[in-house]
């Protein structure tokens, strides 16, 4: 039954537009985790062939996944259905089991990275962006950007673009922002790993992305204290202004 279904899908896939994979085929492809559910390649439904059998025979067609390295079920997003807190704890346990005491510190850092990958929510590369006057913060993927201009464009789109049927988050502004050149009402600032708030754009992009913790689109009038590159840590505000 599963085979028929796959064949049926392969036929209908031929009619669909660009970007779809053709043919369910016999080579099981590894489905990448993160973001988009089990649709690692567009349009293909996972079937029994995607999952390795652990010592049990298949009731379905025995035509196999021979020749392809079977992907693990742990690579399917959200499977097994365990909440991210629990998943993180499991991963931490794994790491702890495999080490000796001397290397604990290094391992702790490593597990934190692994933790981030597993939880899916605290994702490496995604950082929080808040804008003055906007209650709802957003997240942006730094790894998906190559330059400050790129990033500024994304942020402008995120907070200011209005499209039919969608109200931009601020609901009002429609002019392009130009966050980087100091000509607009807002500037882009960031908090670095030491907790200091600085103007975006002073350091090379690569250095920036390794040290940025979060971003803030701040009113130019409030940003005057940041003109200097280094800010006294004591001035760092406890609560964000409303």
């Amino acid at each position, binding site marked *: 039954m599963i085979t028929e279904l796959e064949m049926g899908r392969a036929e*209908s896939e031929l009619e*669909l537009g660009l970007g779809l994979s053709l043919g369910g085929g016999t080579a099981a492809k590894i489905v990448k985790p993160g973001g988009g559910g089990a*649709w690692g390649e567009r349009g293909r*439904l996972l079937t029994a062939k995607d*999952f390795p059998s652990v010592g049990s025979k298949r009731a379905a067609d025995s035509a196999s996944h021979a020749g392809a390295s079977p992907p693990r*079920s742990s690579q399917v*997003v959200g499977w097994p259905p365990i909440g991210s807190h629990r998943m993180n704890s499991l991963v931490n*346990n794994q790491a702890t089991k495999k080490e000796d005491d001397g290397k604990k510190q290094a391992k702790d850092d490593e597990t934190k990275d692994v933790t981030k990958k597993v939880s899916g929510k605290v994702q490496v590369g995604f950082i*929080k962006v808040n804008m003055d006057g906007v209650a709802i913060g957003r997240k942006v993927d730094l790894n998906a950007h190559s330059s400050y201009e790129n990033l500024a464009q994304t942020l402008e789109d995120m907070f200011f673009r209005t499209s039919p049927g969608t109200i931009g988050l601020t609901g009002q502004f429609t002019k392009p922002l130009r966050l980087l050149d100091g000509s607009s009402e807002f500037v882009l600032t960031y908090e670095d790993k030491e907790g200091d708030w600085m103007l975006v754009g002073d350091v090379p992009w690569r250095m920036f992305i390794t040290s940025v913790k979060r971003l803030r689109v701040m009113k130019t009038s409030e940003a005057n204290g940041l003109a200097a590159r280094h800010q006294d840590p004591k001035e760092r505000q406890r*609560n964000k202004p409303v």
Partner: protein
Amino acid sequence: MDLRLPSKVLEHILSFVDSNEDRNSVSLVCKSWFETERRTRKRVIVRNCYAVTPEAVARRFPEMRSLTLKGKPHFADYNLVPDGWGGYAWPWIEAMAAKCPSLEELRLKRMVVTDECLEKIAASFKDFKVLVLTSCEGFSTDGLAAIAVACSNLRELELRECIVEDLGGDWLSYFPETLTSLVSLDFSCLDSEVKLSDLERLVSRSPNLKSLKLNRAVSLDALGSLLRLAPQLVELGTGSFSDKLDQEAVSKLSQAFSEMKELKSLSGLWDVLPEYIPLLYSVCPGLTSLNLSYATVQMPDLVELLTRCSNLQKLWVMDLIEDKGLQVVASSCKELRELRVFPSGAEGLNDTNVAMTEQGLVSVSEGCPNLESVLYFCVQFTNAAMVTIARNRPNLKCFRLCVMEPFAPDHKTQKPLDEGFKAIAERCKDLQRLSVSGLLTDKAFEYIGTHGKKLRMLSIAFAGDSDLMLHHLLSGCESLNKLEIRDCPFGDTALLENAAKLETMRSLWMSSCCVSFGACKLLSQKMPKLNVEVIDEHPLETRPDSSPVERIYIYRTLAGPRLDMPEFVWTIQKNPEIGVSHLAIK
């Protein structure tokens, strides 16, 4: 002659009506009853924050003191809902701040809560008492500080499995010295260390403190001094249970535990070392709830603990308990009502404990007459086991079986697990919640549709053969309220044929199924009282009607299409020019 009940009398009568289900019925009797009821309702629960607008709720229930809201669909817990989908608490908090400033309690589940939200709560509700956030995200410890510092009558602050941006442990130090009303504090999901002296002072000035759930960073040593300050605790979540203590510290801790005469619920126990398990023996007989799901304790030590827990009603544990351990539960924990067994291996199949099989659950079903709720992660299962379980426990209300290997058949007979789930559906007449897994054909769903008359929530993954599966469920399960499906090969026909059913349900989630874009448009057109959301992170530039959608989330609503949809969520109202005129409309 005026035969109507005077409204004062009705009000008095209603003050004894607590259940919202009853109050909902009352409000349908007639207009004056509707009016009296709405003016007196104190506790409001909205199980889908997009089903109604915050303003409408505030207008209807001006005397609201307690509000409970749920946002994202359940599958968001497993990362199936992309970030930015929605579920924002802000509009609700803003509306309540304006219209119901006497609000005292807020309980939010799966919502996006920002620091601004928390600051607004702190600033707007003078008598704020209870904040419970479950599986929420979007805020940092700064927001907690705002709550701590401002809410002078705070009774409960609970963070359950939230994703919090942890900027340090200072937030706890913001509770003023004048705050003495704390009854419950749960910060178990936070990472950073709080200042122990501040925590101790907070605990010692809170004589009403009944529930304290610490985070992992609180050491075993610190636990000792906290317990001595609060022996009256009814619920305790420990921190890490693994520091090396000297003999004196150990005996002090043991003494502290034995002083806790009221303790009913125990959790936490991260990294607990086997040699510390005996410290818990003194509280075991009094426990009704034990959460060992984060404790990597092996079977022999678990057994020692569980034989002493004769009053246990709720047990959460990892599969390290093995079949043997579950046999001990079956013979020792006769009051057991709820059992959850979680996998101990992060990699799922390859390192899951194989000494735990379907037998474990069968034993518990035999030995525990009050067992009504089960969540069981297991590598594989058999039909025979499910038939036995159903025969033993027709009183099951919740049966969630997660066979971790997708499409796994009965490992003894190699047949699909249809017969097993049939037995469960047939025998357990009060079954309200069911999660199925393993190899399942359409037949399984025919059985469920035929027998699952009280079923309210159903979760399905990697199952079925065709549209018939969905059709059986939507046409058969009369009480169906929430249906969530992933990676199943059906869609259009069943969905469109049973469109009317969707208005009787809270929500339907389908991801990685075969629902076409055209069907979504058609459904949207047919059913204006539903929000049909197509959630597609990688849409094609031109979207032909036959193209499958990644995810679809359908829910009934009085509020119309929501205004806070991100780019990747499509509804028909967003692009009305893409019409369905060329499709046949039934």
